[in-house]
């Protein structure tokens, strides 16, 4: 696997391992030194970012042929070889830069946001571990390494959501996130193993490696070893993983709850990077999915439905962070839909811009929460004057999210929508509707929380310190310019999508309509929102119950799983196995003893009688003989 152009030295390893080294150092030295641990974490990730940037420059400068792979063997058995390494191609380089870049900003932001927290060092330790795990996914050379990182980000997410473990809601949310992801990973793991098992007719040539599989797949299909049915199964199982990690319906339930974690965590993990891992994985394995039209169909529909359904949930949500969480779901739905429609470059494009503006939105929300300790948008208000930087950043992020022309989100969303327009009319309608909904709910959030005059005084609300606003400004800048960096070209999309005029027009209409309606309702108060709530009473009822997923799952876990299945097994165990089989055997032995004991009366004369009778009988028979 040695590429002649490979002259990148230890840089890939530095990129991958410096956050892990930071995490280890925090664990060993930093657990009682707050400053040290935050410096280590920020330094580790910044180092990673710098080396990733150097890698990129190096690659561009020397025109190295990508992909470059460098790896060590992790498990080496005659029938099973697993390596661990770094795979550099445009996809992974871009994602690495996003993760480490956005991550560094958020780490920096956290040093201030979490400054009063007693679990400061633990927070940064786990955050660093998260960064390492995420990079393991991004730079993975093979499915198993990807799965390794996949599970580790799941763990980091669990630990960070439950950072305030004494709060039952946070502890439960962490557990829920981990469990939902575990269920999804059940499918993912099976998919990976199945793909491995079918990767070659020869047991010794099976592989997890992306590059080998990619090269081998057409051949496998051609020779009939890998039948379309099996491939569909594998594709859907692997998609299961993305379903959990990228929180697509019906496994989306953990993401809104994950907002119980500290806000920077929501920004980094539950908006910008980890939840995007599912989409990243789909793009990484696009060579697989492009052979499975049926799986692509499923993926596109799941994405489209999630995009629209989550946007609707955001309409009636009042918690600032949860609005953003539903928005994340919805945007991830866009990306998944794009993959399903065959546009993995568009998906990655949107992933990147989304990472910028959604991190921005979350950090701005965090800034508000830090200042006011409130999250309900109706309890906020008037912040536009009190916190101008935060408010402007939120607005820029919101406009980018809504796809306001000229901002980054506009370009990436346009890429997806025009793709949908070309390939699937119904999904395009869903997407366009989502765009309108997006514009409406984000405008509502900004107008109500920031723009609307305060109804109670927020005199104490003041702008956050510069270490928090700094990342906001940088991310705001990125949210504006990311559309002009030529990302699609970098990702290998040679002909730029010329958005059809219809698509652009409809999008503009949707954005304008959404903003306008929000303005009319919440600022002008020309239209009463009660009117809508009354008009769509039934639908609001459904939305308030979040389509009933949570109830269904809670019912399943509490009633079916815990009370029926587990208790049934418990009854079998206690009564059938222990009570009947084991104690029954013991009882039988005792009962036999009780019966036979009756012979032992303890009356010696009886024994003597038996004895004498016996002797007489014996002697008599002896004489008779």
């Amino acid at each position, binding site marked *: 696997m040695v590429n002649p152009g490979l002259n990148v030295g230890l840089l890939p390893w530095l990129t991958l391992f410096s956050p892990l080294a930071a995490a280890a150092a925090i664990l060993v030295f930093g657990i009682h030194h707050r400053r040290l641990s935050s410096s280590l974490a920020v330094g580790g990730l910044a180092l990673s970012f710098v080396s990733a940037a150097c890698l990129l420059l190096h690659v561009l400068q020397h025109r190295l042929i990508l992909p470059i792979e460098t790896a060590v*063997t*992790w*498990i*080496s*058995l*005659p*029938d*099973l070889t697993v390596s661990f390494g770094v795979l550099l191609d445009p996809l992974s380089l871009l994602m690495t830069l996003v993760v480490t870049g956005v991550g560094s900003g958020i780490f920096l932001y956290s040093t201030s946001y979490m400054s009063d927290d007693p679990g400061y060092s633990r927070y940064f330790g786990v955050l660093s571990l998260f960064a390492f795990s995420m990079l393991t996914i991004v730079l993975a050379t093979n499915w*198993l390494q990807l*799965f*390794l*990182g996949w*599970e*580790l980000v799941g*763990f980091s997410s669990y*630990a960070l959501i*439950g950072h305030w*473990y*004494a709060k*039952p809601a946070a*502890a*439960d949310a962490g*557990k829920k996130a*981990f*469990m939902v992801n*575990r*269920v999804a*990973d*059940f499918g993912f*793991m*099976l998919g990976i*193993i*199945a793909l*491995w*098992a079918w990767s070659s*007719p*020869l*047991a010794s040539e099976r592989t997890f490696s992306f590059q080998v599989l990619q090269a081998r797949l057409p051949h496998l299909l051609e020779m009939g070893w890998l039948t379309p049915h099996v491939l569909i199964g594998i594709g859907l199982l692997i998609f299961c993983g993305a379903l959990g990690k990228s929180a697509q319906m019906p496994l989306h339930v953990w993401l809104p709850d994950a907002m119980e974690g500290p806000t920077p965590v929501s920004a980094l993990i539950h908006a910008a990077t980890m939840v995007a891992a599912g989409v990243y994985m789909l793009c990484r394995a696009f060579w697989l999915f492009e052979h499975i039209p049926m799986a692509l169909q499923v993926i596109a529909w799941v994405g489209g439905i999630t995009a629209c359904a989550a946007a609707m949930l955001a309409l009636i949500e009042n918690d600032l962070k949860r609005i953003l969480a539903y928005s994340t779901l919805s945007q991830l739905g866009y990306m998944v839909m794009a993959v399903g429609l065959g546009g993995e470059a568009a998906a990655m494009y949107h992933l990147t811009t989304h990472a910028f503006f959604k991190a921005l939105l979350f950090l701005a929300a965090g800034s508000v929460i830090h200042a006011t300790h409130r999250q309900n948008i109706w309890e906020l208000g008037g912040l536009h004057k009190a916190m101008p930087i935060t408010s402007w950043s939120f607005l820029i992020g919101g406009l980018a999210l809504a796809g306001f022309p000229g901002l980054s989100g506009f370009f990436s969303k346009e890429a997806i929508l025009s793709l949908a327009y070309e390939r699937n009319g119904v999904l395009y309608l869903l997407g366009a509707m989502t765009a309108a909904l997006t514009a409406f709910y984000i405008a509502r959030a900004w107008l109500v929380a920031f723009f609307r005059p305060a109804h109670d005084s927020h005199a104490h609300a003041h702008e956050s310190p510069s270490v928090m606003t700094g990342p906001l400004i940088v991310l705001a800048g990125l949210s504006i310019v990311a559309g002009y960096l030529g990302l699609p070209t970098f990702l290998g999309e040679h002909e730029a999508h010329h958005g059809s005029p219809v698509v652009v027009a409809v999008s503009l209409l949707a954005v304008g309509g959404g903003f306008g309606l929000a303005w009319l309702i919440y600022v002008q108060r020309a239209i009463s929102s009660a009117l809508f709530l009354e008009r769509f009473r039934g639908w609001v009822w459904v939305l308030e119950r979040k389509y009933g997923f949570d109830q269904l799952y809670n019912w399943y876990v509490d009633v079916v*799983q*815990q009370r029926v*299945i*587990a*208790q049934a*097994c*418990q009854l*079998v*165990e206690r009564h059938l*196995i*222990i009570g009947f*089989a*084991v104690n029954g055997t*013991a009882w039988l032995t005792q009962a036999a003893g009780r019966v036979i004991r009756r012979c032992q009366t303890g009356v010696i004369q009886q024994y003597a009688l038996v004895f004498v009778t016996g002797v007489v009988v014996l002697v008599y028979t002896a004489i008779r003989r």
Partner: protein
Amino acid sequence: MPPLSSSWILALVLLAPAAAALLLCVVPAAQAVWVRRIAVLATGASLAGALTIFFHYNRALAGYQYEMLVPWISSLGISFHLGVDGIGTTLVLLHALCAFCGVLISYAITDRVKEYYIFYLVLITGVFGVFTSLDVFFIYFFYEMAVIPMYPLIGIWGSDVKEHGMVRFSKEYAAMKLTIYLTAGAVLALVGLLWLYASSGLQTSDLVALEHHFSLTPLAPHLQRMIFPLLVIGFGVIAPMWPFHSWSPIGHAAAPSAVSMLHAGVLMKLGSYAILRLAVSLMPDGARLWLPWLAGLCVMNIIYGGLVAMAQKDLKLIIGYSSSSHMGYVLLGIAVLTPVGLNGAVLLMFAHGLMTALAFALVGHVYDQTHTRYLPELGGLAKSLPFIATCGVIAAMASSGLPGFANFVAELLVIVGAWDQYRLQAVLAVLGVVITSVYMLRLVRGTFFGQANESLPHARDATTPFARLPYLILTGALLAVGCWPKPLISLIDLSTRPIIARIARAQAAAPGVGSTWRESY
């Protein structure tokens, strides 16, 4: 073979705890400090020896090394024969780690310290004996030696299993059940072993000689078919194979934590080790016939054990049932008879031993501090026990197969190894991982997170380096093997490969019998 002079290392590993047990008999009971020091020194010596063997095992030569042979009853062909191969080395290291940590954890014992340590050291010696002996007689002898001390250890120093504040299983019940169950299993196995001994016609109980003999002239298939289940069920009881598992969770729960550590960590591996070493390795035909049944039972272990664990409220019962669930993976790895699966099984014995020892040590600490291990009464302990809670999360994650811990690698190998022949079992094994995380997360959530229960006494964390040492050793070993499994796997592979090769040869010799061995496609 390494130079003969080095074979004393293995003898040291085995005899150090035995010598310490004898020494303790003459130490006055009042000298509890010295009693503990002697135990720590002895197990420390064993650990040092085990590490030496692990690092110096000659991988180029493979086979049995550090051999020592002392003829004993030559008319019956019984000799005291020590030696380890890759599997033995791995398990000796596991046991040395667990025993050392267990002795440290036993510092919590304050009642009749001297007698406790004597029994504990006898138990340790017995387990070492099984893993190091290369003579069937002595394997059986040490096996019994390991089982018997459990009775006083649980009966005297144990604790009752309570539910809703009421005694559900008394410690006497647990001790009695465990001892009778394991002895009954051993008797079954003894019948099989005697039968095997008699029908080999060699007049020797030397394992190496038997292996050699049976690989050249296999036992008649009809005999293999009858002897094999005797050994598998007999040793399966301690493994613990479903449905003969019910002694184990209750026994674990009632035993003092250091005993549970050894018990779940190592003692249960005696069963799977003996099945591998005596049944599968010596009787390939029997293995081919019976192992598919075993593979079916394993799934019951995995799924059923996991589901029952979900219903438990006693921390130790949860971990106890989880052990019986995870041992299902070990048995599955053995049953699938592929090199990958077998390596996974042995690696999982190692990984699960460390993980479960860690878990029992932690539960022991929680129980000592709060005097309860009833889940509904616990909560929020992470605040007062940060170190223990961290280790608790680690143990839970290791148990649920998080990458980075040895359990992940081992379970992966078992599942991958099972995939070709036993796909349904492999799928259900993956499902078992999900079930594990359900109850493990519930345990962590209920014990360490959430609101602290104000009525509990104030719990003190393990703060001194000495108190933390056992936890650090166990987590360190789990992490080290999990992050860099290659050396250990290749070591195990050296010794599993000959077993697989023998079975493949038997398969080739007897075509037409139901195939469980994948040659090629």
